[in-house]
């Protein structure tokens, strides 16, 4: 734990904590969602407020009259839609930049994360489980990469050579070269940011879902969401496919491998909608 904190504290340009996100997530999980509290929370953040209004008044959602205020916009869009938008805006702030240490260009980590989030959401939905939770955990699963990218940038050649010669997974190479890996770093950072335990655990074990013990179902959604993002080409960096197949992820969720192509088709369809949503609200 201490070693993880040392790495996190070393990073000079850590993005600000997405403080709305964990609070909004816990608000939405209650039976009766308190609309006023949702509005008050969002109102803290001018950029998110503007995005909610823009989305509500875009051609996709607009009613006869444009929504005048945040309250009305939130009611019209619905909590789930609002939550996804908040997650998307917060996520793009944190994950939009290039990460040279991983050979990742600007926008690529974000594209990867959104694809994983949408895929995880679709799989959770098919099992009638909490889709917002799966979406959020998968959206943030690679957060640790923005912490480790700086350390890896200095040894990128070594990273490339090491991963090529050993044919090992990226997290194993990170562990060998740095003593820590991005999944555990991401989990630690989210814990410091007061995200709920289930998300912390799912992110920490997104490459090995059985390790997440009581949260292994959520971790398995993230694992498979991540995998689908790679399959669909939204996985970047050198030796992009250096991750291990975990049959357990399918077993935990009682899924057959044949189910994956169908989830990919649904992800493809949903992504086109999400891209439109992000475009109109940006």
């Amino acid at each position, binding site marked *: 734990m201490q070693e993880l904190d040392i790495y996190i504290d070393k990073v000079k340009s850590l993005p600000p904590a997405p403080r709305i996100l964990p609070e909004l997530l816990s608000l939405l999980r209650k039976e009766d969602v308190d609309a006023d509290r949702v509005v008050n929370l969002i109102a803290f953040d001018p950029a998110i407020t503007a995005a909610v209004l823009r989305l509500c008044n875009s051609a996709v959602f607009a009613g006869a009259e444009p929504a005048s205020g945040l309250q009305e916009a939130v009611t019209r869009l619905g909590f789930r839609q609002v939550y996804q938008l908040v997650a998307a805006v917060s996520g793009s702030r944190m994950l939009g930049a290039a990460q040279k240490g991983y050979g990742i260009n600007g926008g690529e980590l974000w594209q990867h994360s959104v694809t994983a989030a949408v895929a995880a959401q679709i799989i959770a939905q098919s099992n009638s489980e909490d889709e917002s939770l799966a979406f959020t955990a998968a959206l943030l699963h690679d957060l640790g990469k923005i912490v480790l990218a700086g350390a890896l940038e200095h040894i990128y050649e070594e990273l490339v050579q090491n991963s090529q010669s050993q044919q090992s997974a990226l997290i194993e190479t990170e562990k060998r070269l740095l003593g820590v890996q991005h999944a555990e770093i991401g989990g630690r950072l989210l814990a410091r940011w007061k995200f709920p335990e289930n998300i912390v655990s799912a992110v920490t074990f997104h490459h090995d879902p059985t390790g997440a013990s009581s949260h292994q179902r959520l971790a398995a959604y993230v694992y498979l969401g991540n*995998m689908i993002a*790679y399959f669909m080409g939204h996985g970047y960096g050198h*030796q992009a496919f250096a991750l291990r197949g975990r*049959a357990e992820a399918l077993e935990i969720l009682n899924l057959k491998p044949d189910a994956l*192509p169908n989830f990919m088709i649904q992800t493809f369809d949903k992504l086109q909608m999400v891209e439109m949503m992000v475009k109109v609200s940006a």
Partner: protein
Amino acid sequence: MSSLEQKIIVGIADMAVSKNPTVTLATYSLGSCLGVAIYDPITKAGGLLHVMLPDSNIDAAKAAERPSMFVDTGVAALFRAVYQLGAEKQRLIISVAGGAQILDGSGLFNLGPRNHEALNRLLAEHDLCIYAEQVGGLANRSMRLSLATGEVRLKVSGQFGETLLLCKNSTST
């Protein structure tokens, strides 16, 4: 690329064909998908396809709506479209990239190899063979086809520069 040249981007589960020599067809981030480029050096007609899944039986309705999502329906659509531009089957030079594969002992997550197998089977049924390919492994590749020359170039994510999959000389015969 000079200003007279234009690049057409082919998205996932999509394709494009052209016989305009100023055009380059490009597709990004293939992942486990396959990029299939075909080119007729005489008419300079060619096409590029980015298929995601091996078989249209997975979702017949989707295949009808979007044939380029699947190897079987996508390749058929690609060939039909370049034939319409005057290309002839026996002259077509086929190159393939993508089909990346994770480190998977379980064999359950083998979509890249399955895409490749499906393509090989389909081409063999039609007495066609792949001229050049770079398939499998851990790399996420991007691919582009120049219609002026028939050259096919690849870019691997996380690496600098491009590599030549198919050069001009090999397509001039």
